[in-house]
């Protein structure tokens, strides 16, 4: 039986616990046993992106200690946290004789959720059904950082229910970018406006993505505008089984 460790991510842990449970439910339905290391906190991405690399290193080391040195795969339902663990942490710690090799080993066994389901488990039909009109925003870090492009689309394609709604300018950033949305709030906001206009033009009632940070940003914009469009993490969509 396949066993994995779930990297919950601090945002899912704190703001969107239901996404964590959907991820677990989905993986369990696929026959995977999920462990959740209790002492995990944040992967350090906010500090890394803002140039506080010493702080980011400390958080990356903590993460490495928490996930240990076994060979149990680590699954993370976020492209940007995945990119942090897979690409950035090894880069940050490359001169650290103790943690450098451990960071590289952790990176090698870490998978973004859809990568794990499609590429490792070899599954695209997870038995999901959704009554929503779904449109999909490929969040930038998963798409270009990890190269996760076809996996979420393959999974979505097999979800039963109304046809998907293509999103115009799908691959254009929603403007989140962590503290970028605070520092350059106006630029970020005008990108958000553009993303929302495209979402509304798609005719969908639900926007799906694989990163809750972008979803939080887009949902905040949709709510400000009084839009009726909802947002969902892909795991939430995939966890809705056909039998339910």
């Amino acid at each position, binding site marked *: 039986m396949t066993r994995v460790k779930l990297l*919950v991510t*601090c945002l*899912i*842990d*704190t*703001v*969107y*616990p239901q996404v*964590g*449970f959907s991820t677990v439910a989905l993986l369990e339905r696929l026959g995977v046993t999920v462990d*959740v290391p*209790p*002492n*995990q*906190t*944040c992967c*350090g991405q*906010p*500090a890394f*992106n*803002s*140039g*506080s*690399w010493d*702080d980011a290193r*400390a*958080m990356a*080391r*903590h993460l490495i200690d928490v996930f240990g040195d076994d060979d149990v795969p680590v699954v993370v339902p976020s492209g940007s946290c995945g990119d942090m663990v897979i690409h*950035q942490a090894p880069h940050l710690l490359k001169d650290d004789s103790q943690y450098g090799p451990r960071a590289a080993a952790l990176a090698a066994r870490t998978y973004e959720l859809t990568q794990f389901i499609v590429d490792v488990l070899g599954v695209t039909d997870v038995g999901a059904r959704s009554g929503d009109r779904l449109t999909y925003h490929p969040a*930038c*870090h998963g798409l*270009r950082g990890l190269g996760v492009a076809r996996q979420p689309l393959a999974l979505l394609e097999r979800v039963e229910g109304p046809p998907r709604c293509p999103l115009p300018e799908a*691959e*254009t*950033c929603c*403007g*989140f*970018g*962590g503290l*970028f*949305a*605070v520092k*350059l*709030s*106006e*630029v*970020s*906001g*005008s*990108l*958000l406006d*553009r993303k929302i206009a495209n979402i509304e033009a798609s005719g969908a009632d639900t926007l799906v993505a694989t990163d809750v940070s972008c979803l*939080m*940003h887009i*949902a*905040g*914009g949709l*709510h*400000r505008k009084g839009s009726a469009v909802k947002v969902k993490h892909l795991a939430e969509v995939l966890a809705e089984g056909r039998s339910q």
Partner: protein
Amino acid sequence: MSTSPATFYERVDKAIGNPALQAAVRNATSRMSSGRDAAIAAFPEMDVMRDHARAIRAHTIARLDHYLREFEASVQRRGGHVHWAATSEEAVAIVVDIARQHGVKTVVKGKSMVSEEIELNPGLALAGVEVLETDLGEYIVQLDDDHPSHIVMPIIHKSRHDVARLFRAKLQATDDEVADAPRMAALARRVLRKGFLQADMGISGGNFGVAATGSVCITTNEGNGRMTTSLPRVHVALMGIERIVPTLDDLGVMLQVLGRSATGQKLTVYSNVMSGPRRHDRNGGREGESDGPEHFHVVLVDNGRSAIVGSELAEILYCIRCGACLNSCPVYQQIGGHAYGSIYPGPVGAVLMPALQGLHTWRDLPQASSLCGACREVCPVRIDIPRMLLELRDKTTELGLTPIWVTFGLTVFRQIATRPALFRRAQALASWATRRLATDGWIKSLPGHMARWSKKRDFPAFAPKTFQQLWEGRKR
């Protein structure tokens, strides 16, 4: 031009408040981007070609000394002159000197970003030399006393109507002469034609210098480059020292990726490869070349470049100035080039400006990115711009230039996030606080620096119980 007096953030706000500018920039960049995408879709070898182009650039920059010396020797062998300029002041002084030597009164100029970088035109004007820009966009920039806002399309921030208004004011154009773009171009051409025939000296940029042959290659779509470099009796080519490729074969590779990435063209319309001055045959007979300048000068401009070689930013020297990263950048698309306040705007500029001139002046540019990676995806030589923006942000913090609220906030966060028990308590506190501030699960206005978030979007209240708490409960 160095930083304009307004701050970066003020310029950004001004750009965001200008929907006409945003529309113009978005139209032009999306046209260029789709052109690029189509050209690349039609050329399956592009991926291999890009790898090849990158390898050529990496190889050259790693041995830049060697290839520069070879280039210099090759130019000299062909009867040309090479000048080395360590700074912009030196570069301007060299060009002014050349003009004096040859008794030059008027200059026609092709498009050159390096000439903008070294502020050549004001320098020449001071020396009493009259300069006429001959690239249509640059001509318009010059007439309007403006600055280019894109490295390939200097005036994408202007509409056709802006140009018509300018031509009426400055050239006393009639309504008929500015009725449409072709007629405006025809009017400009009449002015420029005269300039070409009168000029004593032509100044061009240089897209590439070929070390093996001492050739300078320039690419244009208007043919002005060809006239600039062949009609006047003196030709001066201005190039950054990093513009070298080893051989003509390498040049062929670069041209194939350049045209497609810049404008979606298989090849730019005019690709001129110039090797030395016009050659006469020894007896003045018919064997010599029928045209070309009598004097051929290349000015190699360092101006901060050699300091980048060997650093973690060296990759930015691979850049071939195609502009694809500008066109693909969502931030550039929203604010245009002038907001950056720099000669080189957009993603490439956000790395190049601090690399050339330091973070003290350009600390804001590396922040002007959501790190979405679109620039890396389109770059013909696969420069990892986001990685370098991150390196620069780290340097900014090291230099003490990152705002305290960011560095302090993150240090506190790190202290909490490396102590799980404390982290759990902080989560509980944050959950309590956000839920107090929220109505129906949403916060309309956040306190402190986070207020800027809530200017444009609501913020969610955190969950009453964390995943970890609920997971504990489930296990029991």
